[in-house]
């Protein structure tokens, strides 16, 4: 028996799918970093808060779309509140202090979301609400369509990729074609210059945090469908970290490609290196190692802005 190519393809596809999930979290990160230079550690708890809000509402009999709408509204309010009460007083501070503030925010949100809702583990099954073929639990047997490719594709992963893809298209449109998007790009380029031409920095930040909240809701729901709504969602943030570092902290395409690279690399590493390394669970650090190797050769990530240093 030779090398199992079909298996390799299956692994690759699986990796790509999980990469999409990482990218979803990473996009939220990148948005905030781009617009304010803040490394937002609270992204994971925002995922938790958003999906918990949604799940609790559907459990109490509110229908899917209303719940989605309300949860998005809550996230927008939250984002605006963060700008008003955290970002504004902290403006112009050391980046490390801002980073720690988001860790503080994460701690707060962790307590808050479990305090107003609960800390149980909730299952989320979207096919209860949405009558979509893609949300079926049965996987697609690719062999029925392509005879030589005997692999299984979970339908949900395809659905997740589609959602992620459309989210990215919407974001790209928002950034490139709308006036708000233009001011967001201006702010990310240079705070001072943006302010000088009359862009209201605070409004822009509020918008960014609100948009990030909505992305967190989308990502949170997809993650929740895959795993469950619980405390573990917070760990998504640790998964997304190497992704954004590989992609470059300031690039949305970087976040996506980084996610795919990490997703595939992780799976390949686990399967082809895992046994050789004599232990299971190398996924944990393998992503970080990949990112590390990458950064040693390109310190600003794949698409990050090149550092220009002056004395």
């Amino acid at each position, binding site marked *: 028996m030779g090398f199992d190519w079909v298996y390799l393809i299956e692994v690759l596809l699986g990796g790509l799918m999980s990469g999409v999930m990482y990218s979803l979290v990473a996009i939220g990160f990148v948005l905030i970093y781009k617009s304010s230079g803040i490394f937002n550690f609270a992204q994971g708890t925002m995922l938790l808060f958003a999906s918990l809000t949604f799940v609790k509402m559907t459990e109490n009999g509110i229908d899917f779309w209303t719940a989605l709408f309300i949860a998005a509204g809550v996230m927008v309010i939250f984002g605006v509140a963060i700008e008003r009460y955290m970002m504004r007083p902290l403006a112009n501070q050391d980046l*490390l202090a801002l980073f720690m503030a988001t860790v503080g925010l994460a701690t707060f949100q962790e307590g808050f979301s479990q305090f107003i809702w609960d*800390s149980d583990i909730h299952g989320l099954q979207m096919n209860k609400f949405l009558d979509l073929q893609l949300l079926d639990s049965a996987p697609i047997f690719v062999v029925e369509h392509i005879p030589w490719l005997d692999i299984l594709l979970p339908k949900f992963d395809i659905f997740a990729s589609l959602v992620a893809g459309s989210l990215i298209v919407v974001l790209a449109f928002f950034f490139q074609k709308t006036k708000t998007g233009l001011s967001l790009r201006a702010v990310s380029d240079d705070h001072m210059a943006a302010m000088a031409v009359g862009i209201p920095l605070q409004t822009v930040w509020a918008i960014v945090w609100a948009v990030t909240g909505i992305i967190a809701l989308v990502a949170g729901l997809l993650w929740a469908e895959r795993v469950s709504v619980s405390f573990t969602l917070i760990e998504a943030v640790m998964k997304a970290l190497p992704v954004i570092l590989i992609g470059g902290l300031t690039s949305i395409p970087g976040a996506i490609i980084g996610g795919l690279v990490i997703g595939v690399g992780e799976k390949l590493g686990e399967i082809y290196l895992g046994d050789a390394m004599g232990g299971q*669970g190398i996924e944990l650090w393998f992503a970080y190692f990949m990112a*590390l190797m990458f950064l040693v050769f390109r310190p600003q990530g794949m698409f990050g802005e090149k550092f220009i240093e002056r004395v």
Partner: protein
Amino acid sequence: MIYRETGNFVTDYMRDREIFPMKFDKIMVVLGLLFLYLYVPTTSEYMLSAHVIPILAVGLAVVGLNILTGITGQLSLGSAGFMCVGAFGTFNLMLRLPEWLMSLPVALMISGIFAGLVGVIFGLPAIRIKGFYLLVSTLAAQYFVWWFFNSFTYFINYEASGVVAVPPKMYDYWGIGNFLGIDMQGYSPRYILALTIVIGLTYFAKNLLRSTTGRNFMSVRDRDIAASVMGISVPKTKLLAFFISCFYCGVAGGMYSFLYIGNVDLMIYEVDRSFTILFMLIIGGLGSISGSWLGAIFVYEFPILFTWVGDVIFGGAFNTAVVENVSNMVYGVFIIALLIREPGGFAALWATTKQKLRMWPYPH
């Protein structure tokens, strides 16, 4: 009135460079040492085992992280991983070397060196990677170390549960048994050992900051290109900072596992602990050694105090989950508020207080 430079005359250069230039400071240091060495060991065993020793251990890790992050400016989230190296290093040294060769204090120091070397390896990328991107290196260290000790059970002596208790006779490393009615395997001697290590290393750190090495660290933090222009070897400085910092973390890890918990357990060195240590550092104030200790004490005691206050006021009307969540909320808000009000952390508050004392009772 109390705290004055007046009357402290410096007559030669050595005295000018003293670490505690003021008479008042000297008196306070001596009184503090007497208090720590003579009074604290006689307090209850609970006090020592649940409050003082863990704070000493964790605080030492915070001092270590401070050298790396606060003073050299290299952000690290791997402290718990390096603590883990220290704990497992101590365990293996004690286990594998003959008893006459290895005693607990020596093993702690040697495993600190192990941790330092591991730190240097993971610090190598710092030569090229800067800023937040460096997180990837220290987090790789954190996850790799954790995975390593989790997979290779040789290092935990093939213990299936993954937890090994420390045999109590290890604490009586001089084989005294019972001295003046004090059980040498009890908590007081452990506390004395921890305290001695901590005082020694804190003194070293404090002095390090006033030396050429410390000034090199700071210049690399402030502007590394300017530092290299001035002839400071930036890679060497960064790696030295990694070594010293991780040495502190390693010793702290050994102390945490051996002197506080009393068993070697991987679970306490997960990434959360790295965050806690970073919290302590930020709350205490970056770059200040005394601030690190204030931060460690505050962060360690806060949840305990909060639970206790909650218990007293509401009398256990809420279950622990609610208390924990509210504690998290209060804590998060407190951190943000502190960063807004006083970004310098407790160290800055302390400096202000000192200044006020100096001026008192005439505030101008």
